[in-house]
């Protein structure tokens, strides 16, 4: 997950190869101009990403009452494999179901499963990380060992195994994805907690007679929340991808509930005469993940804190 960290603090040419002299003033001006341009570009992409996600969420929430979203299961066999048109924006699938509305209903499943799993991950990862980072010693070593064991399973295999052996259902998919998200968040929160518990305001609070619980939740937690949240966005993208992978392999929520991953898999056999069946959900999914990653990138630049501590 850490691959998607921000590194956009542009540096000037490391190997000065240009002929013009490098006056300090000149460098400063160029740098300033470049950064204003970068900021403008950044703001635009930020709002595009935000707008796309807001639109998708709006459509998903109000799918039942919006007039242009057909109920996806009212298919007529006659309309099977229609290419994208004014009537069916994304075309129809093999069973004549409208792909646009299936993508929207799929967004419901994928986004809500992803979001719920992230929240569960934030809660347990946050709690465990705070405890391990604050109390250290035995609490820390037990927590870290458990997390090491979870991380010893390849992520997709772990999720696949949990859903397979517990049965395919929405709660079990959420459990599997939460298990994936907890170790990373625990580590992040633990590292941040360790840094903040050394700070003077914690000492001040303690010398005023504050109890551990108060220090953890009133002093440390507010400082740990920003990095947690920016990491959670990256985590959301990873979990949406993971849910899609499970669905692609046929191990997520069972059909006929539409999920993006399963729709992509279903269209795979018909790529030669109806490419849109796979490509429509693939495109929606790509834009969603791209938007979430962009937002996460912006946030993590705001609240970046070194993770490798302790």
């Amino acid at each position, binding site marked *: 997950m850490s691959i998607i960290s921000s590194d956009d603090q542009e*540096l000037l040419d490391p190997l000065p190869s240009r002929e013009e002299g490098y006056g300090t003033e000149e460098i400063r001006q160029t740098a300033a101009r470049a950064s204003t341009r970068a900021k403008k570009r950044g703001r635009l992409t930020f709002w595009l990403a935000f707008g796309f996600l807001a639109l998708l969420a709006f459509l998903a929430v109000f799918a039942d009452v919006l007039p242009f979203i057909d109920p996806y299961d009212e298919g007529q066999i006659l309309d099977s494999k229609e290419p994208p048109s004014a009537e069916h924006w994304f075309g129809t699938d093999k069973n004549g179901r409208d792909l646009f509305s299936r993508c929207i209903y799929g967004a419901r499943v994928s986004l809500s499963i992803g979001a719920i799993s992230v929240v569960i991950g934030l809660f347990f990862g946050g709690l465990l990380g705070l405890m391990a980072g604050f109390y250290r010693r035995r609490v820390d070593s037990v927590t870290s060992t458990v997390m090491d*064991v979870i991380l*010893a399973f390849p992520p*997709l295999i772990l999720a696949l195994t949990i859903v397979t052996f517990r*049965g395919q259902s929405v709660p079990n998919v959420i459990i599997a994805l939460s298990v994936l998200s907890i170790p990373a968040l625990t580590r992040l929160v633990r590292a941040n907690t360790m840094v903040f518990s050394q700070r003077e305001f914690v000492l001040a609070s303690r010398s005023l007679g504050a109890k551990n619980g108060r220090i953890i939740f009133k002093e440390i937690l507010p400082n740990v929340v920003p990095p947690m949240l920016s990491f959670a966005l990256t985590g959301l993208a990873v979990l949406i991808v993971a849910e899609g*992978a499970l669905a692609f392999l046929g191990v997520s929520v069972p059909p006929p509930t539409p999920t993006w991953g399963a729709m992509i898999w279903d269209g795979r056999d018909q790529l030669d005469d109806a490419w849109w069946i796979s*490509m429509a959900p693939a495109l929606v999914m790509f834009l969603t993940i791209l938007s979430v990653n962009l937002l996460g990138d912006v946030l993590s630049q705001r609240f970046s804190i070194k993770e490798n501590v302790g």
Partner: protein
Amino acid sequence: MRYVGQKLIQLVIVVVAVTFLTSMLLRLLPGDPAVFKAGPGATEEQLEEIREDLGLNDPIPVQYVKWLGDFLTGDWGISTQANTPIFDLIKDRLPVSILIMVYAQILALLIAIPLGILAAYRSGSLSDRAVNTAAFGMLSIPNYVIAVVFVLIFAIRLGWFPATSKYYNPFTDPVEHFQAFFLPVLTIAIGLAAGYTRLLRADMIGTLQNDFVTMARSKGMSTKRILFGHALRPSSFSLITAAAVNIGVLIGGTVIVEQTFQLSGMGYLTVFSIGVRDYEVVQAAVAIFALIFVLANFFVDLAYGWLDPRIRHARALA
């Protein structure tokens, strides 16, 4: 040496925990695992026999030790679906998956190293921005989407590669071997390469600020030599860490591409066995995947400590 010892102890703990959890998987199934294995309509006697056979009547520690003993001696049970020993099923399929993973890792590095160096050397330029944006975009495309897009373009539209592949022996049919593996391997490699490129670029920009680079330059050394000979090595530590962390991504990727391209490897076997509820095969496959992952991480940890003296000393002092 103490570092190796410590890592070995950790390895043993994790292996025990992982195999223990795997051995308990059948108990997670809702209901009686024996009913699953026997199928509907089994008599109580048959069920009892299966329970005895699976060791479900023993206390849990005994069950685990028995399971581990069987596992270590290659006695993994019989696949109910294929009616052959599970060991044989896995033995035939494991090389396919391992080859896919090794090829993908190599290809990803072959793509990422030149691109990362180019982007870092020309940082801020148009080519840098193009590489960086493309990498960011590629990181947002799940590998199963890449796989399907590749099938559409290269197999169906252009017809350059088969849409569903078969495993060919690399020594007897090298051409078919690489043709069959090309799309699956490229699918996994692209996502990895995007991550590696960004990491290498960031580290390389830092390295190029160093005095020794200016020094080399003032001596008149060629740019190529500075970049590849001097700057690459100190810039590659995050890359190596990422390559290790990504073994998990590789394993996930091989499951996805084996399924998409119908390549008969471990991932294909696992997903197929899930579909037909052949849970013992899944159990054995999970154990193998986890052990590969744990062992690979162990060796990378060792190699990492050996490559970067700073780590060795930091650990020794701690």
